[in-house]
Protein backbone atom coordinates (compact mmCIF):
# COMPACT_ATOMS: atom_id res chain seq x y z
CA UNK A 1 0.00 0.00 0.00
CA UNK A 2 2.68 2.41 1.05
CA UNK A 3 4.66 1.47 -2.01
CA UNK A 4 1.79 2.50 -4.25
CA UNK A 5 1.67 5.90 -2.55
CA UNK A 6 5.37 6.47 -2.92
CA UNK A 7 5.90 5.57 -6.56
CA UNK A 8 8.38 7.63 -8.54
CA UNK A 9 6.63 10.73 -9.86
CA UNK A 10 8.16 10.06 -13.28
CA UNK A 11 5.82 7.11 -13.68
CA UNK A 12 2.92 9.52 -13.26
CA UNK A 13 4.54 11.83 -15.80
CA UNK A 14 4.50 9.02 -18.34
CA UNK A 15 0.79 8.48 -17.71
CA UNK A 16 0.09 12.15 -18.37
CA UNK A 17 2.14 12.18 -21.55
CA UNK A 18 0.25 9.13 -22.83
CA UNK A 19 -3.14 10.58 -21.87
CA UNK A 20 -2.37 13.58 -24.04
CA UNK A 21 -0.64 11.93 -26.98
CA UNK A 22 -2.88 8.93 -27.58
CA UNK A 23 -6.12 10.92 -28.10
CA UNK A 24 -4.20 13.28 -30.38
CA UNK A 25 -2.92 10.39 -32.49
CA UNK A 26 -6.15 8.39 -32.68
CA UNK A 27 -8.56 11.22 -32.97
CA UNK A 28 -12.04 10.49 -31.76
CA UNK A 29 -14.60 13.16 -32.31
CA UNK A 30 -16.08 15.05 -29.44
CA UNK A 31 -18.88 17.54 -29.74
CA UNK A 32 -18.07 20.86 -28.09
CA UNK A 33 -21.42 22.46 -27.31
CA UNK A 34 -20.94 26.22 -26.89
CA UNK A 35 -21.80 27.65 -23.48
CA UNK A 36 -23.76 30.83 -22.90
CA UNK A 37 -20.87 33.18 -22.12
CA UNK A 38 -19.15 32.22 -25.37
CA UNK A 39 -22.38 32.51 -27.33
CA UNK A 40 -23.06 35.99 -26.00
CA UNK A 41 -19.64 37.11 -27.13
CA UNK A 42 -20.12 35.52 -30.53
CA UNK A 43 -23.55 37.15 -30.90
CA UNK A 44 -22.09 40.52 -30.03
CA UNK A 45 -19.52 40.35 -32.83
CA UNK A 46 -21.93 38.68 -35.20
CA UNK A 47 -24.40 41.55 -34.82
CA UNK A 48 -21.85 44.16 -35.87
CA UNK A 49 -22.26 45.62 -39.31
CA UNK A 50 -19.60 45.73 -41.99
CA UNK A 51 -16.94 48.34 -41.34
CA UNK A 52 -17.50 48.43 -37.57
CA UNK A 53 -14.42 48.59 -35.40
CA UNK A 54 -13.37 45.81 -33.07
CA UNK A 55 -10.40 46.41 -30.83
CA UNK A 56 -8.43 43.32 -29.83
CA UNK A 57 -5.83 43.77 -27.15
CA UNK A 58 -3.42 40.84 -27.20
CA UNK A 59 -2.30 41.09 -23.57
CA UNK A 60 -0.38 37.85 -23.26
CA UNK A 61 3.09 36.58 -23.88
CA UNK A 62 4.37 33.26 -25.22
CA UNK A 63 3.91 31.50 -21.87
CA UNK A 64 0.12 31.54 -22.38
CA UNK A 65 0.29 31.24 -26.13
CA UNK A 66 -1.18 27.74 -26.29
CA UNK A 67 -4.38 28.89 -24.61
CA UNK A 68 -4.87 32.36 -26.02
CA UNK A 69 -3.48 32.20 -29.55
CA UNK A 70 -6.28 29.84 -30.74
CA UNK A 71 -8.77 32.34 -29.31
CA UNK A 72 -7.12 35.22 -31.13
CA UNK A 73 -7.12 33.25 -34.35
CA UNK A 74 -10.79 32.32 -34.04
CA UNK A 75 -11.82 35.90 -33.25
CA UNK A 76 -9.82 37.25 -36.18
CA UNK A 77 -11.41 34.73 -38.54
CA UNK A 78 -14.82 35.87 -37.39
CA UNK A 79 -14.05 39.57 -37.72
CA UNK A 80 -12.38 39.35 -41.12
CA UNK A 81 -15.09 37.08 -42.46
CA UNK A 82 -17.63 39.73 -41.51
CA UNK A 83 -15.50 42.56 -42.97
CA UNK A 84 -15.12 44.15 -39.57
CA UNK A 85 -12.13 46.43 -39.11
CA UNK A 86 -9.73 45.11 -36.52
CA UNK A 87 -7.58 47.32 -34.33
CA UNK A 88 -4.87 45.23 -32.71
CA UNK A 89 -2.63 46.26 -29.84
CA UNK A 90 -0.79 44.77 -26.89
CA UNK A 91 0.24 45.82 -23.41
CA UNK A 92 2.87 43.06 -23.12
CA UNK A 93 6.18 43.61 -24.96
CA UNK A 94 6.41 39.92 -25.86
CA UNK A 95 2.84 40.01 -27.12
CA UNK A 96 3.84 41.97 -30.22
CA UNK A 97 5.34 39.02 -32.08
CA UNK A 98 2.37 36.74 -31.46
CA UNK A 99 -0.24 39.38 -32.23
CA UNK A 100 1.44 40.59 -35.39
CA UNK A 101 1.81 37.06 -36.70
CA UNK A 102 -1.83 36.21 -36.06
CA UNK A 103 -3.29 39.38 -37.60
CA UNK A 104 -1.03 39.30 -40.62
CA UNK A 105 -1.55 35.62 -41.41
CA UNK A 106 -5.30 35.61 -41.07
CA UNK A 107 -5.63 38.98 -42.74
CA UNK A 108 -3.79 37.52 -45.72
CA UNK A 109 -6.22 34.59 -45.91
CA UNK A 110 -9.08 37.04 -46.37
CA UNK A 111 -7.12 39.44 -48.56
CA UNK A 112 -7.10 42.21 -45.98
CA UNK A 113 -4.57 45.03 -46.03
CA UNK A 114 -2.75 46.60 -43.14
CA UNK A 115 -3.80 50.19 -42.61
CA UNK A 116 -6.98 49.74 -44.59
CA UNK A 117 -8.85 46.76 -43.19
CA UNK A 118 -6.89 46.35 -40.01
CA UNK A 119 -4.20 48.09 -38.05
CA UNK A 120 -1.72 46.69 -35.58
CA UNK A 121 -0.74 49.45 -33.19
CA UNK A 122 2.00 47.57 -31.37
CA UNK A 123 3.06 47.85 -27.76
CA UNK A 124 2.98 50.64 -25.20
CA UNK A 125 4.09 50.42 -21.58
CA UNK A 126 2.04 51.49 -18.60
CA UNK A 127 -1.06 49.25 -19.01
CA UNK A 128 -3.81 51.25 -17.25
CA UNK A 129 -2.24 54.54 -18.37
CA UNK A 130 -2.31 53.38 -21.98
CA UNK A 131 -5.97 52.45 -21.67
CA UNK A 132 -6.88 55.87 -20.27
CA UNK A 133 -4.79 57.69 -22.84
CA UNK A 134 -6.55 55.77 -25.60
CA UNK A 135 -9.84 56.59 -23.94
CA UNK A 136 -9.06 60.27 -24.31
CA UNK A 137 -7.42 60.12 -27.72
CA UNK A 138 -6.26 57.05 -29.59
CA UNK A 139 -3.86 59.11 -31.74
CA UNK A 140 -1.80 60.49 -28.85
CA UNK A 141 -1.45 57.03 -27.36
CA UNK A 142 -0.36 55.52 -30.66
CA UNK A 143 1.09 58.15 -32.95
CA UNK A 144 2.40 55.42 -35.21
CA UNK A 145 1.42 51.83 -35.79
CA UNK A 146 3.74 48.86 -35.31
CA UNK A 147 5.32 49.34 -38.72
CA UNK A 148 5.97 53.05 -38.18
CA UNK A 149 3.08 54.38 -40.27
CA UNK A 150 1.26 57.45 -39.01
CA UNK A 151 -2.09 56.58 -37.45
CA UNK A 152 -3.77 59.91 -38.14
CA UNK A 153 -5.89 59.62 -41.25
CA UNK A 154 -5.48 55.87 -41.50
CA UNK A 155 -8.33 54.20 -43.35
CA UNK A 156 -8.70 51.44 -40.76
CA UNK A 157 -9.20 53.99 -38.00
CA UNK A 158 -11.71 56.15 -39.85
CA UNK A 159 -14.38 57.40 -37.47
CA UNK A 160 -12.48 56.34 -34.38
CA UNK A 161 -11.03 59.06 -32.20
CA UNK A 162 -11.03 57.37 -28.84
CA UNK A 163 -12.13 54.17 -27.12
CA UNK A 164 -15.65 55.62 -26.94
CA UNK A 165 -16.00 55.06 -30.67
CA UNK A 166 -15.03 51.39 -30.59
CA UNK A 167 -17.95 49.10 -31.37
CA UNK A 168 -16.58 46.18 -29.41
CA UNK A 169 -13.38 45.56 -27.51
CA UNK A 170 -11.89 42.17 -26.71
CA UNK A 171 -9.14 41.79 -24.16
CA UNK A 172 -7.18 38.56 -24.45
CA UNK A 173 -5.60 38.41 -21.05
CA UNK A 174 -3.02 36.22 -19.38
CA UNK A 175 -3.02 38.12 -16.11
CA UNK A 176 -4.72 40.85 -14.17
CA UNK A 177 -4.89 43.33 -17.05
CA UNK A 178 -8.55 42.52 -17.68
CA UNK A 179 -9.28 44.38 -14.45
CA UNK A 180 -7.55 47.49 -15.79
CA UNK A 181 -9.63 47.19 -18.96
CA UNK A 182 -12.80 47.06 -16.87
CA UNK A 183 -11.91 49.73 -14.32
CA UNK A 184 -10.08 52.24 -16.53
CA UNK A 185 -11.56 51.36 -19.88
CA UNK A 186 -15.05 49.96 -19.96
CA UNK A 187 -16.39 51.86 -16.96
CA UNK A 188 -14.69 55.14 -17.82
CA UNK A 189 -15.33 55.24 -21.56
CA UNK A 190 -18.45 53.12 -21.93
CA UNK A 191 -17.74 50.58 -24.60
CA UNK A 192 -18.73 46.94 -24.73
CA UNK A 193 -16.01 44.64 -23.53
CA UNK A 194 -15.49 40.92 -23.82
CA UNK A 195 -12.61 38.99 -22.32
CA UNK A 196 -10.70 35.97 -23.50
CA UNK A 197 -8.66 34.67 -20.62
CA UNK A 198 -6.52 31.73 -19.58
CA UNK A 199 -8.56 29.13 -17.73
CA UNK A 200 -6.79 30.12 -14.51
CA UNK A 201 -8.55 33.48 -14.62
CA UNK A 202 -11.88 32.02 -15.78
CA UNK A 203 -13.71 31.80 -12.44
CA UNK A 204 -12.88 35.43 -11.71
CA UNK A 205 -14.99 36.64 -14.64
CA UNK A 206 -18.34 35.59 -13.20
CA UNK A 207 -18.98 38.59 -10.93
CA UNK A 208 -18.28 40.91 -13.86
CA UNK A 209 -20.57 38.99 -16.18
CA UNK A 210 -23.44 39.21 -13.72
CA UNK A 211 -22.96 42.95 -13.23
CA UNK A 212 -22.96 43.42 -17.03
CA UNK A 213 -19.44 44.81 -17.00
CA UNK A 214 -18.45 42.10 -19.44
CA UNK A 215 -20.60 40.91 -22.30
CA UNK A 216 -19.08 37.47 -22.25
CA UNK A 217 -15.83 35.59 -21.89
CA UNK A 218 -13.85 32.77 -23.41
CA UNK A 219 -12.14 30.66 -20.76
CA UNK A 220 -9.00 28.86 -21.85
CA UNK A 221 -8.65 26.35 -24.64
CA UNK A 222 -12.21 25.17 -24.05
CA UNK A 223 -13.56 28.65 -24.73
CA UNK A 224 -11.49 28.83 -27.91
CA UNK A 225 -12.83 25.44 -29.00
CA UNK A 226 -16.40 26.60 -28.45
CA UNK A 227 -15.76 29.72 -30.49
CA UNK A 228 -14.25 27.62 -33.26
CA UNK A 229 -17.43 25.55 -33.26
CA UNK A 230 -19.58 28.67 -33.47
CA UNK A 231 -17.73 30.16 -36.45
CA UNK A 232 -17.54 26.71 -38.00
CA UNK A 233 -13.80 26.76 -38.35
CA UNK A 234 -12.53 23.87 -36.25
CA UNK A 235 -8.82 24.08 -35.60
CA UNK A 236 -6.29 23.34 -32.88
CA UNK A 237 -8.52 24.16 -29.93
CA UNK A 238 -11.32 21.86 -31.02
CA UNK A 239 -8.77 19.13 -31.72
CA UNK A 240 -7.41 19.61 -28.22
CA UNK A 241 -10.69 18.82 -26.54
CA UNK A 242 -10.41 15.04 -26.68
CA UNK A 243 -7.00 14.89 -24.96
CA UNK A 244 -8.30 17.52 -22.55
CA UNK A 245 -11.19 15.24 -21.61
CA UNK A 246 -9.00 12.21 -21.19
CA UNK A 247 -6.41 13.99 -19.09
CA UNK A 248 -9.09 15.49 -16.83
CA UNK A 249 -10.47 12.04 -16.19
CA UNK A 250 -6.94 10.87 -15.43
CA UNK A 251 -6.41 13.65 -12.88
CA UNK A 252 -9.77 12.93 -11.25
CA UNK A 253 -8.85 9.24 -11.02
CA UNK A 254 -5.50 10.17 -9.49
CA UNK A 255 -7.17 12.32 -6.85
CA UNK A 256 -9.74 9.63 -6.01
CA UNK A 257 -7.21 6.81 -5.97
CA UNK A 258 -4.67 8.81 -3.99
CA UNK A 259 -7.25 9.73 -1.38
CA UNK A 260 -8.51 6.15 -1.25
CA UNK A 261 -4.98 4.93 -0.44
CA UNK A 262 -4.52 7.76 2.04
CA UNK A 263 -7.62 6.88 4.01
CA UNK A 264 -7.00 3.14 3.69
CA UNK A 265 -3.56 3.50 5.18
CA UNK A 266 -5.10 5.24 8.19
CA UNK A 267 -4.18 8.83 7.33
CA UNK A 268 -0.81 8.42 9.01
CA UNK A 269 1.87 10.86 8.01
Amino acid at each position, binding site marked *: MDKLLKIDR*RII*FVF*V*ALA*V*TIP*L*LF*RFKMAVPPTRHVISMYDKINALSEGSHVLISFDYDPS*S*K*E*ELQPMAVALLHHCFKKNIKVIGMTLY*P*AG*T*GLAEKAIKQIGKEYGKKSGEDYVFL*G*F*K*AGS*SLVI*MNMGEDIYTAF*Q*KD*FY*GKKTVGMEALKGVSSLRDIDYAVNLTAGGIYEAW*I*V*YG*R*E*KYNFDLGVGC*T*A*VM*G*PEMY*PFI*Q*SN*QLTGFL*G*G*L*KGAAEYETLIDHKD*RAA*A*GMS*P*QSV*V*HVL*VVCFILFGNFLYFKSGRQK
Partner: protein
Amino acid sequence: MNKSRDIYILFFILIAFFIVSVVYLSFGWLDIWGDGLGIITAAAVTLAMYSFLYKDNPVFKIAENLFVGVAMGYSIIIVWFNILKPDVFEALIVPVFKDTGKAPQYTVIVPTLLGLFMFLRFSSKLSWLSRWSFAFIVGMGAGIAIPNFINAILLRQLEPMFAPLYTGSFWGTINTLLVLIGVVSVLFYFFFSLEHKGVIGGVSVIGIWFLMIAFGASFGYTVMARMSLLIGRMQFLLKDWLGIIQ
Protein backbone atom coordinates in the same frame (compact mmCIF):
# COMPACT_ATOMS: atom_id res chain seq x y z
CA MET B 1 27.29 4.89 -12.16
CA ASN B 2 24.14 6.98 -12.14
CA LYS B 3 26.01 9.81 -13.75
CA SER B 4 27.32 7.70 -16.60
CA ARG B 5 23.80 6.43 -17.22
CA ASP B 6 22.59 10.01 -17.56
CA ILE B 7 25.33 10.74 -20.05
CA TYR B 8 24.34 7.73 -22.12
CA ILE B 9 20.72 8.88 -22.10
CA LEU B 10 21.78 12.34 -23.18
CA PHE B 11 23.86 11.04 -26.06
CA PHE B 12 21.14 8.68 -27.16
CA ILE B 13 18.58 11.48 -27.29
CA LEU B 14 20.98 13.83 -29.08
CA ILE B 15 21.77 11.23 -31.75
CA ALA B 16 18.11 10.34 -32.17
CA PHE B 17 17.21 14.01 -32.55
CA PHE B 18 19.99 14.53 -35.06
CA ILE B 19 18.89 11.54 -37.14
CA VAL B 20 15.26 12.62 -37.12
CA SER B 21 16.23 16.13 -38.21
CA VAL B 22 18.47 14.89 -41.03
CA VAL B 23 15.82 12.46 -42.25
CA TYR B 24 13.08 15.09 -42.20
CA LEU B 25 15.21 17.65 -43.96
CA SER B 26 16.54 15.28 -46.60
CA PHE B 27 13.11 13.90 -47.43
CA GLY B 28 11.82 17.44 -47.72
CA TRP B 29 9.21 16.97 -45.01
CA LEU B 30 10.66 20.05 -43.43
CA ASP B 31 11.86 22.85 -45.69
CA ILE B 32 15.43 23.79 -44.87
CA TRP B 33 15.21 27.29 -46.31
CA GLY B 34 11.75 28.04 -45.01
CA ASP B 35 10.58 27.40 -41.50
CA GLY B 36 12.16 23.94 -41.32
CA LEU B 37 15.29 24.93 -39.43
CA GLY B 38 13.20 27.10 -37.17
CA ILE B 39 10.85 24.28 -36.31
CA ILE B 40 13.78 21.98 -35.58
CA THR B 41 15.26 24.64 -33.29
CA ALA B 42 11.92 25.08 -31.58
CA ALA B 43 11.57 21.32 -31.13
CA ALA B 44 15.06 21.17 -29.64
CA VAL B 45 14.21 23.95 -27.19
CA THR B 46 10.93 22.24 -26.28
CA LEU B 47 12.60 18.91 -25.60
CA ALA B 48 15.38 20.59 -23.62
CA MET B 49 12.76 22.15 -21.38
CA TYR B 50 10.95 18.85 -20.92
CA SER B 51 14.21 17.18 -19.92
CA PHE B 52 13.57 18.83 -16.55
CA LEU B 53 10.90 16.20 -15.95
CA TYR B 54 13.55 13.52 -15.84
CA LYS B 55 15.70 15.56 -13.52
CA ASP B 56 17.28 18.99 -13.27
CA ASN B 57 20.12 18.90 -15.81
CA PRO B 58 22.57 21.15 -17.65
CA VAL B 59 20.63 21.03 -20.92
CA PHE B 60 17.57 22.41 -19.18
CA LYS B 61 19.63 25.05 -17.42
CA ILE B 62 21.27 26.20 -20.64
CA ALA B 63 17.93 26.41 -22.43
CA GLU B 64 16.37 28.24 -19.51
CA ASN B 65 19.11 30.85 -19.19
CA LEU B 66 19.19 31.33 -22.93
CA PHE B 67 15.45 31.93 -22.88
CA VAL B 68 15.74 34.48 -20.07
CA GLY B 69 18.33 36.37 -22.09
CA VAL B 70 16.40 36.24 -25.36
CA ALA B 71 13.20 37.39 -23.66
CA MET B 72 14.97 40.35 -22.10
CA GLY B 73 16.66 41.24 -25.39
CA TYR B 74 13.34 41.05 -27.19
CA SER B 75 11.67 43.39 -24.67
CA ILE B 76 14.47 45.93 -24.95
CA ILE B 77 14.22 46.07 -28.74
CA ILE B 78 10.43 46.28 -28.69
CA VAL B 79 10.52 49.10 -26.14
CA TRP B 80 12.93 50.96 -28.41
CA PHE B 81 10.85 50.56 -31.57
CA ASN B 82 7.46 51.05 -29.96
CA ILE B 83 8.05 53.65 -27.26
CA LEU B 84 11.40 55.37 -27.16
CA LYS B 85 11.80 55.79 -30.92
CA PRO B 86 8.38 57.28 -31.79
CA ASP B 87 7.60 59.06 -28.50
CA VAL B 88 11.02 60.37 -27.45
CA PHE B 89 13.59 60.08 -30.23
CA GLU B 90 11.40 61.23 -33.12
CA ALA B 91 9.20 63.57 -31.11
CA LEU B 92 11.92 65.43 -29.23
CA ILE B 93 15.45 64.67 -30.36
CA VAL B 94 15.27 64.39 -34.16
CA PRO B 95 13.39 67.69 -34.75
CA VAL B 96 15.99 69.58 -32.69
CA PHE B 97 18.77 68.60 -35.08
CA LYS B 98 16.92 68.11 -38.30
CA ASP B 99 14.13 69.97 -39.99
CA THR B 100 11.32 67.44 -40.17
CA GLY B 101 8.61 70.02 -40.66
CA LYS B 102 7.53 69.56 -37.09
CA ALA B 103 8.47 71.46 -33.97
CA PRO B 104 10.03 69.37 -31.24
CA GLN B 105 7.54 68.47 -28.51
CA TYR B 106 9.28 70.05 -25.55
CA THR B 107 6.77 68.69 -23.05
CA VAL B 108 8.32 65.27 -23.60
CA ILE B 109 11.39 66.54 -21.71
CA VAL B 110 9.63 66.10 -18.36
CA PRO B 111 8.84 62.38 -18.63
CA THR B 112 12.18 61.75 -20.31
CA LEU B 113 14.04 63.28 -17.40
CA LEU B 114 11.88 61.46 -14.88
CA GLY B 115 12.46 58.22 -16.81
CA LEU B 116 16.22 58.76 -16.79
CA PHE B 117 16.16 59.60 -13.07
CA MET B 118 14.90 56.07 -12.45
CA PHE B 119 18.29 54.67 -13.40
CA LEU B 120 19.91 56.70 -10.65
CA ARG B 121 18.39 54.18 -8.27
CA PHE B 122 21.55 52.16 -8.81
CA SER B 123 23.86 55.05 -8.01
CA SER B 124 24.75 55.57 -4.39
CA LYS B 125 24.95 59.36 -4.42
CA LEU B 126 22.03 60.38 -6.59
CA SER B 127 19.57 57.60 -5.86
CA TRP B 128 17.27 60.14 -4.19
CA LEU B 129 16.44 61.54 -7.63
CA SER B 130 14.89 58.21 -8.61
CA ARG B 131 12.41 58.68 -5.80
CA TRP B 132 10.94 61.65 -7.64
CA SER B 133 10.07 59.47 -10.61
CA PHE B 134 8.57 56.75 -8.45
CA ALA B 135 6.63 59.35 -6.47
CA PHE B 136 5.24 60.77 -9.70
CA ILE B 137 4.13 57.40 -11.10
CA VAL B 138 2.91 55.89 -7.83
CA GLY B 139 1.17 59.06 -6.66
CA MET B 140 -0.58 59.45 -9.99
CA GLY B 141 -1.59 55.79 -10.03
CA ALA B 142 -2.95 56.02 -6.50
CA GLY B 143 -4.95 59.14 -7.29
CA ILE B 144 -6.46 57.65 -10.41
CA ALA B 145 -7.20 54.35 -8.72
CA ILE B 146 -9.32 55.62 -5.84
CA PRO B 147 -12.39 57.04 -7.65
CA ASN B 148 -12.20 54.52 -10.47
CA PHE B 149 -12.15 51.56 -8.11
CA ILE B 150 -15.01 53.01 -6.07
CA ASN B 151 -17.02 53.33 -9.27
CA ALA B 152 -16.06 50.26 -11.27
CA ILE B 153 -15.75 47.69 -8.49
CA LEU B 154 -17.54 48.84 -5.36
CA LEU B 155 -20.58 50.60 -6.84
CA ARG B 156 -20.89 48.41 -9.92
CA GLN B 157 -20.54 45.19 -7.96
CA LEU B 158 -23.02 46.37 -5.33
CA GLU B 159 -25.58 47.20 -8.02
CA PRO B 160 -26.68 43.60 -8.73
CA MET B 161 -26.84 42.94 -4.99
CA PHE B 162 -29.77 45.36 -4.68
CA ALA B 163 -31.97 43.22 -6.89
CA PRO B 164 -35.19 41.95 -5.33
CA LEU B 165 -34.65 38.48 -3.89
CA TYR B 166 -37.82 37.17 -5.42
CA THR B 167 -37.11 36.64 -9.09
CA GLY B 168 -40.28 34.87 -10.12
CA SER B 169 -39.01 31.32 -10.06
CA PHE B 170 -38.24 29.18 -7.06
CA TRP B 171 -34.69 28.21 -8.06
CA GLY B 172 -33.93 31.72 -9.21
CA THR B 173 -34.90 33.06 -5.81
CA ILE B 174 -32.81 30.42 -4.04
CA ASN B 175 -29.79 31.30 -6.16
CA THR B 176 -30.16 35.05 -5.56
CA LEU B 177 -30.42 34.37 -1.86
CA LEU B 178 -27.36 32.11 -1.97
CA VAL B 179 -25.32 34.78 -3.73
CA LEU B 180 -26.36 37.28 -1.07
CA ILE B 181 -25.49 34.89 1.75
CA GLY B 182 -22.22 34.00 0.06
CA VAL B 183 -21.04 37.57 -0.42
CA VAL B 184 -21.98 38.59 3.12
CA SER B 185 -20.50 35.52 4.81
CA VAL B 186 -17.20 35.68 2.92
CA LEU B 187 -16.91 39.37 3.79
CA PHE B 188 -17.53 38.34 7.39
CA TYR B 189 -14.75 35.80 7.24
CA PHE B 190 -12.31 38.56 6.32
CA PHE B 191 -13.55 40.71 9.18
CA PHE B 192 -10.91 40.91 11.90
CA SER B 193 -12.31 43.26 14.53
CA LEU B 194 -14.64 40.74 16.14
CA GLU B 195 -13.90 37.32 17.58
CA HIS B 196 -15.39 34.52 15.47
CA LYS B 197 -17.77 33.25 18.12
CA GLY B 198 -21.53 32.69 18.24
CA VAL B 199 -23.47 34.06 15.29
CA ILE B 200 -20.47 35.68 13.66
CA GLY B 201 -18.56 32.43 14.01
CA GLY B 202 -21.40 30.60 12.33
CA VAL B 203 -21.61 33.08 9.49
CA SER B 204 -17.87 32.95 8.93
CA VAL B 205 -17.99 29.14 8.77
CA ILE B 206 -20.53 29.48 5.95
CA GLY B 207 -18.08 31.94 4.43
CA ILE B 208 -15.34 29.30 4.52
CA TRP B 209 -17.60 26.84 2.69
CA PHE B 210 -18.30 29.33 -0.03
CA LEU B 211 -14.60 30.10 -0.28
CA MET B 212 -13.75 26.42 -0.53
CA ILE B 213 -16.26 25.76 -3.29
CA ALA B 214 -14.91 28.78 -5.16
CA PHE B 215 -11.33 27.61 -4.66
CA GLY B 216 -12.40 24.21 -5.95
CA ALA B 217 -13.65 25.90 -9.09
CA SER B 218 -10.34 27.75 -9.44
CA PHE B 219 -8.53 24.49 -8.84
CA GLY B 220 -10.43 22.75 -11.63
CA TYR B 221 -9.85 25.62 -14.00
CA THR B 222 -6.14 25.77 -13.20
CA VAL B 223 -5.76 22.05 -13.92
CA MET B 224 -7.55 22.72 -17.18
CA ALA B 225 -5.20 25.60 -18.02
CA ARG B 226 -2.00 23.65 -17.41
CA MET B 227 -3.25 20.65 -19.36
CA SER B 228 -4.17 22.94 -22.26
CA LEU B 229 -0.62 24.26 -22.36
CA LEU B 230 0.68 20.70 -22.50
CA ILE B 231 -1.78 19.78 -25.26
CA GLY B 232 -0.63 22.81 -27.23
CA ARG B 233 3.00 21.76 -26.98
CA MET B 234 2.17 18.17 -27.90
CA GLN B 235 0.31 19.44 -30.95
CA PHE B 236 3.42 21.37 -31.90
CA LEU B 237 5.65 18.33 -31.52
CA LEU B 238 3.34 15.87 -33.28
CA LYS B 239 1.94 18.17 -35.94
CA ASP B 240 4.35 20.95 -36.80
CA TRP B 241 7.54 19.06 -36.12
CA LEU B 242 6.94 15.38 -36.80
CA GLY B 243 3.89 15.80 -38.97
CA ILE B 244 2.34 12.60 -37.60
CA ILE B 245 -1.11 14.12 -37.17
CA GLN B 246 -2.92 16.44 -39.51
